[in-house]
């Protein structure tokens, strides 16, 4: 072991609720090191009381998102080499969500908005019925497919300035989910979904600047989904005068 390992200067947000401050740590730099590795190293070697959240470590579960040098990232798939600025890394809890402790945020507001956007499946058949055949090449299925790889990480939610400014706004992930349901031929409540995204916190509040799509780690485009929702709700407005 060489004793002259390069050290990373890591600033980590510590605190509960609205109170807190950054605490500095030195972490040895490794090859192929992720931000989650850095945070875990601090917790395992320097301060066991550091709170943060992760599960899968491979970009599947969506639980490890944090602000890294001011930008929302999935930390288990974010390499230190890509984001460190002169060996410095700032890690903070995800923006636009209340902090529970240190790097762990309360995700309830995020998931409440999925419910608010009718972001759950509305079945039309029972388990006794035969499975409905869906053509994977149909235009609506293709549109739905573009948005279904969401891992609920809330990176887009943290990136969205409209979420910051308007606490009612459903946000990019919930609206993206509503759009996939609207294009899902098996979903039985089109009107319910359109109504849910048409309220005072609905899709019409999006300013279409696209931070959501720029930061989504799975390269989804909530901004495109929201444009689709605006189009479909406008159409239903003319059809039904709603």
């Amino acid at each position, binding site marked *: 072991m060489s004793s002259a390992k390069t050290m990373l200067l890591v600033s980590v947000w510590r605190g509960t609720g609205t109170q807190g401050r950054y605490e500095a740590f030195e972490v040895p730099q490794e090859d192929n090191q992720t931000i989650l590795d850095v945070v875990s190293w601090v917790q395992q070697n320097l301060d066991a009381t550091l709170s943060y959240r992760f599960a899968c470590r491979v970009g599947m579960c969506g639980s490890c998102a944090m602000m890294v040098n001011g930008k929302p990232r999935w930390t288990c798939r974010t390499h230190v080499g890509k984001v460190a600025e002169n060996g410095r890394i700032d890690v903070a809890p995800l923006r636009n969500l209340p902090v529970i402790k240190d790097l762990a945020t309360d995700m309830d507001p995020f998931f409440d908005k999925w419910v608010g956007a009718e972001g759950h499946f509305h079945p039309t058949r029972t388990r006794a019925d035969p499975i409905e055949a869906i053509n994977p090449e149909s235009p609506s299925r293709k549109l739905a497919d573009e948005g279904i790889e969401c891992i609920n990480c809330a990176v887009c939610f943290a990136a969205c300035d409209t979420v910051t400014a*308007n606490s009612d706004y459903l946000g990019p992930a919930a609206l993206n989910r509503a759009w996939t349901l609207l294009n899902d031929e098996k979903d039985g409540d089109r009107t319910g979904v359109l109504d849910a995204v*048409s*309220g*005072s916190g*609905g899709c*019409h*509040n999006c300013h279409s600047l696209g931070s959501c799509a720029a930061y989504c780690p799975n390269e989804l485009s909530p901004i495109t989904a929201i444009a689709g929702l605006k189009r479909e*709700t406008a159409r239903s*407005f003319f059809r039904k005068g*709603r």
Partner: protein
Amino acid sequence: MIGLKLYMLQRLSAMVMAPLVLGHIAVMIYAIQGGLSAAEILGRTKGSIVWALFYGTFALAVSIHAAIGVRVILAETILKNRHALDGLTLAIGAGLAFMGLSAVYAVTAS
């Protein structure tokens, strides 16, 4: 803090405004190039139903469009109270409509 109805109102008022803005600019260029005096312009607008309708529609569309635009800015910056926001949106729209229509009346009433 806008739902589908306000969104549609803002988009539709924009669609009404777009051709009227172009018409207005064309008229301005024509009036200035031709060297029309204020009196000559008033001579043409006074008593004209067409100009009253043209600028009346313009003033109303602007009032609706601007009131909703200002509402969004206020909602996202300093005014979080829903009722205050509704009241202020109406007041801004009504105020703009009153000023706009008064001006239209002044140049078109004979």
